[in-house]
């Protein structure tokens, strides 16, 4: 099995590389012996690209993201992220599970990044307010998370990441736990917000639909140990209208193309789960 070559997308997006990953691997020491979560990943993500990753559950997508976020160490290969502006943080992550602090108001949660970087509130206030407004929570600035719905909490999480103005946004299935309507709304909001800032994004999802709506490119990962299996560019124009996009024949064709790559891996992951003790 050969990982997909990196040059192809680099040619499609002639922008400077932002994330360069070469032969990256991650081995966990588990009780039953070492487990390879990631193996030999080669990947170049150009500056400003919205890159989506799909793969079967347990394939190490989240591990890849956590390594990029600095929450985990890789055990092999090379990882380089270009930190262009020292005044901005390199990465901010939006987590899959409930991750906004229950003991902080919406405002304090969104202002967390700038505060941790030592920026006085009066200087970050506009930015913080802007993103709270962007995700439609202006009336809930003083509310605590337990007063918010699941969708609103994830909006806070998205606003918190954007308000930190990172060069790279790492999103780990941020909408996976939401119902269909909320998910569609948040996808549209995310697209609108991102169109303005155009940070580099690595977005993990298990939904092909979501990947095609949001991304410039879809990477398909194999079952564990995770490697890159396919690299599919998404040619749709921006700004995008999700509901229009879904009705085009090209969307269906791409969806099929991604699924045909992903299907075998999902089957393999299922089989592995069934065999495992």
């Amino acid at each position: 099995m050969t990982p997909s070559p990196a040059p192809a997308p680099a040619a499609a997006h002639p922008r400077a590389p932002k994330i360069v990953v070469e032969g990256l691997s991650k081995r966990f020491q588990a009780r039953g012996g070492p487990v390879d979560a990631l193996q030999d990943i080669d990947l170049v993500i150009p500056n400003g690209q919205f890159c989506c990753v799909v793969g079967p559950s347990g394939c190490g997508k989240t591990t890849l993201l956590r390594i990029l976020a600095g929450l985990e160490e890789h055990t092999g290969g090379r990882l380089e992220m270009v930190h262009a502006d020292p005044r901005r943080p390199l990465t901010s992550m939006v987590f899959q599970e409930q991750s906004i602090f229950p003991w902080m108001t919406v405002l304090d949660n969104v202002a967390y990044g700038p505060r941790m970087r030592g920026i006085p509130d009066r200087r970050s206030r506009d930015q913080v307010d802007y993103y709270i407004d962007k995700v439609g929570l202006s009336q809930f600035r003083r509310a605590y998370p337990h007063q918010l719905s699941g969708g609103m909490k994830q909006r806070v999480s998205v606003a918190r990441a954007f308000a930190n103005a990172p060069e790279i946004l790492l999103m780990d299935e941020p909408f996976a736990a939401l119902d269909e309507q909320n998910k569609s709304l948040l996808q549209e909001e995310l697209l609108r917000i991102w169109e303005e800032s155009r940070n580099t994004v690595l977005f993990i999802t298990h939904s092909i639909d979501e990947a095609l709506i949001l991304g410039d490119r879809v990477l398909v990962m194999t079952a564990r140990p995770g490697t890159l299996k396919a690299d599919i560019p998404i040619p749709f124009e921006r700004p995008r209208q999700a509901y229009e996009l879904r009705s085009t024949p090209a969307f269906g064709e791409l969806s099929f193309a991604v699924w045909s790559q992903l299907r075998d891996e999902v089957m393999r992951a299922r089989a592995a789960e069934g065999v495992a003790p």
Partner: protein
Amino acid sequence: MSTSYRETPSLAHGGRGDERPHSRHDGGWAAGDSRSLVRAQTSSGHARRPLLSRQAAERIVTLLAPLFLLLLWEALVQARLLDRRFFPAPSSIVGTFVSLAQTSLAGHIGISLSRAAIGFLIGAVPAILLGVVMGLVPLVRAALQPIVGALFAIPKVAILPLIMLIFGLGEQSKWAIIAIAVFFQVLISTAAGVANIDRIYLDVGRNFGAGRLATFWTIALPGALPLIFAGIRLGWGVSLLLLVTAEMVAAKSGLGYLIWQSWQTFTIEEMYVGLVTIAVLGMLSFWLLDLLEAWLIPWKRSQ
């Protein structure tokens, strides 16, 4: 290391229960009582709707029940069915209370409260700091856990003689014994609270570049606060207990002394005044702790 909200000492039960009849400890039978009261009214046929709402009925029952008990007590003593040497009539206790209130009672209350408060602070503040460190740093936890576990198991009353030996018979020994008891109680709750903080919040802190100090102030401390507060509640209960014990053993003032001395001089009414005063102080202090908790932990407030 497990600390739960339910393991409140008896004093906490009494204090909170008396004052908040709807709390889960005794809500069961109170609700049952009032329901039958309401049902009796509706079934009598005079009114379609109950005259009282369920809450109002509950409240009235809550107020009337202890009053009824006091009246029964008074009646039994007046009828000489209760031995007034051991159970003096409530009316005579009130009389003693009034006369004591004009002389020494305030002094006893003041000195007792100051002993409990000072000892409590000396114990609780370092316990919170060390508990957070224990919760955050596995190595520190590994080193201290067995020691703390062993020392916590000693009933604190048992070391009172040792404490008096070391600190003498003055105020210091009272502060010390209370501080020691509170320290372990709060330490264990705090360490458990911090260790049980969802990992994801620490991940967020790391990803957003929170340093050690910021992690302490913005994640570890607030995240553990609900459990820290459970420890504070338990610790305060223990301090009242040890306060009275220490004052009985070696003191010339305080509510514990008042109770002990009235045993020695067989002034039973004064003993009851001491008991009632401690009960009321316990209730009031737990009520104040409730207020403090609501103020400190606004995100726990029910929606």
